[in-house]
């Protein structure tokens, strides 16, 4: 895996949020998801910069929706995960699994002192 292909922490979280939100993934909902689920409050600019970077890498695609009355007549830009995006997430999860494998005992909280 090339260096520039590696997913950053925030990129990974944003990508997961896009997958989870499905048809309803756009800037504000992704931000909400990051806040409620990951407890991370991320600035608007940062979310969009991350989304654009993901799109540049081909992991999401986006399109402008129809203008709605709710948001001051502004259209939403919707995001969907691509095949490549799904694959990348699976790879990332596999990497994490391998790294976690067999560490459950070592990371049990009270053990360190008991020995």
């Amino acid at each position: 895996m090339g260096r520039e292909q590696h997913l950053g922490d925030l990129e990974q979280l944003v990508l997961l949020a896009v997958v989870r939100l499905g048809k309803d993934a756009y800037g504000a909902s992704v931000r909400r998801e990051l806040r409620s689920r990951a407890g991370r409050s991320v600035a608007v600019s940062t979310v969009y910069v991350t989304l654009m970077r993901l799109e540049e890498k081909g992991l999401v695609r986006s399109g402008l929706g129809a203008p709605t009355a709710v948001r001051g007549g502004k259209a939403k830009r919707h995001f969907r995960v691509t095949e490549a995006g799904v694959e990348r997430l699976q790879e990332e999860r596999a990497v994490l699994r391998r790294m976690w494998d067999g560490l459950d005992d070592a990371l049990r909280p009270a053990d360190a002192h008991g020995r």
Partner: protein
Amino acid sequence: MAADPRPPRSASALIRLLLPLELEQAILGDLSEEYAERVKESGRRRAAAWFWLQAITLRPLRLRRALRALNGAWHPGGRSPIHTSLRHLMEALVQTMRHATRRLLKTPGFTAIAVLSLGLGIGANTAAFTLVSAIFLGDDGIAEPERAAQVYRAFDSPYWSISWNDYRAMRDDLGGVFTHTTAHRLRTMRVGDSDEVIPALLVSGDYFGVMGVPPRVGRPFVPGEDTDVDAGPEVVILSHGFWMRRFAGDPGVVGREIRLNARPVTVVGILPPGFEGAAIGIGVDVFVPDAGAVASPGSDNLIGGVRLADGVSMEQARAALAAVAASLNEGRPESLRPIAFTVVPESEVAVHPGIDEAVLPMAALLFAVVVLVLLIACTNLASFLLTRAADRKKEFAVRIAMGAGRGRIVSQLLTESMVLGVLGGVLGVGLAYGGLTLLLSMPLPLPVGLRLDIAPDLRVLLFTLGVSLLAGVAFGSAPALQASRAEVAPTLRDEAGSVTGGRRKLSLRGTLVMAQVAMSVVLLVGGGLFLRSLGRAANVDAGFNPDDVAVVTVDPGTTAYEEEEGRRLYRDLLERTRQIPGVTTVALGTRIPLQVGIGRGFGLRRPDVEPVPGREFLFPQVAFVSPDYFEALDIEVLRGRAFTDADDGAGSVPLILTEAAVAALWGDPREDVVGRSLVVSRADGAGRVVGVARSTKIVSLGEDPEPMLYLPIGRFHQGAALLIAEGSGPPSARAAAMRAAAKELAPDLYVHSAMTAEASAGAALLLPRLGAGVLAGFGALAMLMAAIGLYGVVSYTVAQRRREVGIRLSLGATAEEVVRMMMASGMGVVGLGLLVGLVAAAAAGRLLERFLFGVSGMDPVTFLLVPVFLLAVAFVAAWIPARRASRVQPSEALRAE
């Protein structure tokens, strides 16, 4: 569905301007959506604040970069109401700012010095402007201040206090000229059971009518409350600020009882915000009717106040009061000076007319200093920018040759100076408020702390921003224009390498250095004069010895002690304090030397001379003291004796005079007057001199010896006194022990301001210290800047004349000759600057003379030392870069082309 709330329009416009078109729909829509949610959750105001924060923290450049990487994959949907050219302009501006910031960050040293010097200049100016505007342009909240006036009696000064009798005549003799009349005096009062004292105004008559400020809640005082001592419960009106601080704005406090000076008083009203008495800086917390004034109608301790009726001019008011004075003078003994009133419109008074007159020249001095500092900062910035422009000449020539527009280069340089100017401005505002807070927290020789509004006020902010932008643009444009005018060809040929190059630029930079040197001479001479003045003042024989003396103020009067209890308490206090380890002498006194305070209630007259009309009695300063007072403070009793406990009894009043008082009464300070009688204006009139003490400085070190009278405190009981203890060991620890002992003896006794006599006397040195500190500090700074500028000039010369130096060296010149030649150009400029500076400093010294003590404005020591010192600094600053010239390798220098 109900229409969603619209986010703040101006913030939306800002976001639109900052965002590229492709992101506008998505991001502005998202933010509007969240705004609507937040309005529901936490209200419109917090939501708007959040929205603004989003606008300000938007990262347009990062967004643009990411967008560019997408290669146009995102299309803007719909049409934006913001015109494209405006958006481009904004983008260009953001771009230029970023470029400027990046360029500035490449030379962090240069940027730091430029921002720092600008910040100091702007900070000093903001501080001075804020302070002066807080005092002289501040709003004291009086309605139509030009229709109200303060009334004083013209006596030793035009602003002597009036008596209650004067006030009554003003009030009763005039129909139709004034709508309201009042008299008032400022005191401090102890609130509740704490040791906190607050400024209190004791008022007679219709004070709030004169000020045009009726209470917002409750009622004003009613007639009779100020004169009828037995009229029932005492009342108080609170200032808005005090009500908020002390009672958290609880409206239920009206009608409730609070304790002032340990007496219950009923709150009857609360004033509107913005009015805390007519004197700016004092901040009166409570207003109470002055029932005590009528009890001693003859004593001069009030300030009068009137409000003119409609159609009455200030001149008519003066004439009317002159008539009142004439009627008061009728039947007044001819030997007494006739009464005359001074009338000052409220609109012309900031603190007190006498204080205003003293403060104005100091404010002018402060302004002169800070303007000089800003000038130095600006010349400094200009010479830095010139250097930079010269260094980058080649870069610009290349860019112009490659087709860059001159406008673009000029605008880039301008933006750089603007960025510097704004950064300097921000730093300056911060420095100013830090400095002012520090200044206001300094201990002042005043009974209550200064209360000035130094919060950022729009005027000050605009003023500083204007100054900083102006400085940036003015000094940025000169080098920018010069740079863009650069001819392409000769610069590319490396003009700097030619033998004759660069003379004109050097002379411009030389002029700047010369100006800097001149200005630092002026500031340093000023600082030096104040330092010398401080030295003189510290060596003045004040006539007493404050070393090893601790002082605490005890105030049984504020705890409603009756006189007998008070006397007993004083006796117990003396006894108890004597038992504190290390204490050798204990005394009581109403004042110690070098303290602000007035007490002139006792007139003295020789029975054997015919009184001079208008000057019947001599009114010396008065101190009430216990027997050991003179020993505790090492005030020498020259003839006769100090007081004894026997002096407390009845009979003629025992008097101790100072030599100055003896001189004032008998014409000769050495006259042996012990045992002689004097007529005293109070206490049955009979007095007898028992001793003569050395004169001490009374209020300030600069004063000539003033007549002073000591009276036994045991005979004339005083509601408050200083407990004075001399002894061994640190006085501050002793002061704390004394305070604790007093509290132990009488837990409800009000004990405050425990301090050493030295600290108290040190307050008298405040002005010379402040002057020396400010001027010498800024002077040193100016000198540093001039030194840096000089360093720059000489290194520039060295770089410019490298080729010439190479030739000279190869023709056999020695290294020393080369160094001397390089330094000569720099030192010539310094010499010229010194000359100009000394002439200006001589003029400034004349103006400074009124602030100096014991030093002439042309003090030869200062005028000799400052140039020598400056020359030494300049020599080093020029020598360091000049030395570099001697290390030039001839072969390299000649090959450089």
